[in-house]
């Protein structure tokens, strides 16, 4: 074991982990707003990756426009989830269980839709974040360039979300609604709007994570499947399902732990680790592991 290995694993753990954080953020935004868990949360990642692949590689549009279009469509898909799934279920008196079952089915549905249109084999992700052979070297460590793109995008996204939630009245209303929906309405907050916004934010952040993960996982069904999905849930659960900052930090922690367990134990257990963490946090710290969110009851 050399310091070089440690540094390498640390950086890649942080990079991959921050995308788990984004996936966890998708869970948090929805839970805060409607207290439901969307089991098709991860589908947004797969959808945006395939959309990006279609726009960029198949149609030949530019990077920026492909990115905006894919993420934009996934944001609208969030609205679709609200009005085609959540509202009809609620209107008929359905609760959490019905939403879970419905979204689980949606998750399976999307996997099959993708198989029908794109086949089951992974597609190569275009080298928009550098080629697989592009490395950045410093201090004797060489790191794939894609990690730095991930850092960059996640940092910009977090700065944007921070600004939205902390500095704008819309964001403050969103947080108020998350804390007390009834009273937010008494203040005149249009909860229709904040609920829609929460759905859209939820699918958007996961969609962005999908495009960031595609260079690593390829444009594949794996991006819409259980094992990455569970990593997102683990990150969200570490944040008690309510704390957006906690979800990102939780995801990064998870990424680091995962990498080091691969290094010290075996890569066979990589996915088991996140599952164990999920279960452990649920049992021992169901309100989340971060002190800054603990003064809430």
């Amino acid at each position, binding site marked *: 074991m050399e310091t070089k290995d440690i540094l390498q694993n640390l950086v890649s753990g942080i990079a991959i982990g921050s995308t788990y954080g984004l996936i966890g953020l998708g869970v948090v935004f929805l839970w805060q707003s409607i207290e439901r868990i969307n089991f098709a949360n991860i589908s947004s990642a797969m959808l945006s990756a395939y959309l990006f692949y279609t726009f960029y590689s198949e149609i030949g549009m530019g990077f920026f426009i492909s990115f905006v279009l894919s993420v934009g469509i996934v944001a609208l898909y969030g609205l679709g989830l609200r009005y085609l799934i959540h509202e009809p279920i609620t209107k008929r008196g359905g609760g959490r269980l019905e939403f879970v079952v419905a979204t689980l089915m949606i998750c399976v549905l999307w996997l099959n839709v993708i198989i029908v249109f794109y086949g089951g084999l992974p597609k190569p992700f275009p080298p928009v974040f550098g080629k697989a052979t592009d490395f950045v070297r410093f201090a004797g460590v060489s790191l794939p360039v894609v990690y730095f793109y991930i850092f960059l995008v996640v940092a910009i996204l977090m700065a944007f979300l921070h600004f939205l939630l902390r500095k704008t009245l819309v964001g*403050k209303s969103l947080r108020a609604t998350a804390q007390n929906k009834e009273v*937010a*309405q008494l203040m005149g907050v249009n909860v229709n709007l904040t609920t829609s916004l929460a759905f859209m934010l939820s699918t958007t952040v996961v969609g962005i994570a999908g495009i960031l993960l595609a260079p690593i996982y390829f444009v594949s069904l794996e991006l819409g499947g259980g094992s990455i999905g569970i990593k997102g849930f683990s990150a969200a659960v570490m944040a008690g399902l309510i704390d957006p900052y906690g979800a990102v930090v939780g995801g990064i922690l998870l990424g680091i732990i995962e990498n080091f367990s691969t290094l010290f134990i075996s890569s066979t257990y990589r996915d088991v680790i996140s599952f164990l963490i999920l279960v452990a946090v649920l049992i021992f710290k169901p309100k989340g592991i971060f002190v800054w969110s603990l003064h809430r009851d």
Partner: protein
Amino acid sequence: MSLLKIRNLAVSYNGIPALKKVSFEINKGEVVSVLGPNGAGKTTLLRAISGLVKCEKESEILYKGKNIVGLQAYKIARMGIAHVPEGRQVFPDLSVQENLEVASVLTSLNRRSGKIQKVYELFQELNSRKNQPAGTLSGGEQQMLAIGRALVSDSELIMVDEPSMGLAPVIISRIFKTLRQIVQEQNLTLLLVEQNAKLSLPLSDRIYVLSQGRIVLSGTVDEVKDSDLIRQMYFARE
């Protein structure tokens, strides 16, 4: 014309009635108190007005002549009805300032900061705690903030649900003094729910007594203050 007029308001929870054909009205500029023991239906009354609970079919709640039954709660709030809920219910993770900002959604942009400033002048305690999360305020400060939120909302009718609940006597008298001051200065209409007649009578023009979901006594303060019911309420709490 009355600002708020309620006719045959009936509410039940799972088939058990909480309000039974309640009728009453409030005129513009009045201070009206609703008194009544635990479980009388006082909170339910305010929640029905705000659109937080469903009313039965025959119920009518006219605000400025318009029936608001069945409207979404946020739309009712936007018509100018502020509701300071029972138990204060500030947004715990929002700062004091943010709580007030969220409540000022309805106020026109250029008047928001002035309105918020006014609340800080009224409640100095809040002024020095602008950036503190509201969940860490004392009970009294939270009640001040809850009332402050109603004041920045630019509402004509303010409904306050048991502001004295769980607070020390000094704080209670402070809060009632401020309520009186607000009503005098700002030409507001106040619907005050209290169990404690001693606190609310000196402030009120008229009162209604609610018991087991019905109005059992109503009138101006002078008319009712010598009735046995009110006397009981006065002394039951000593």
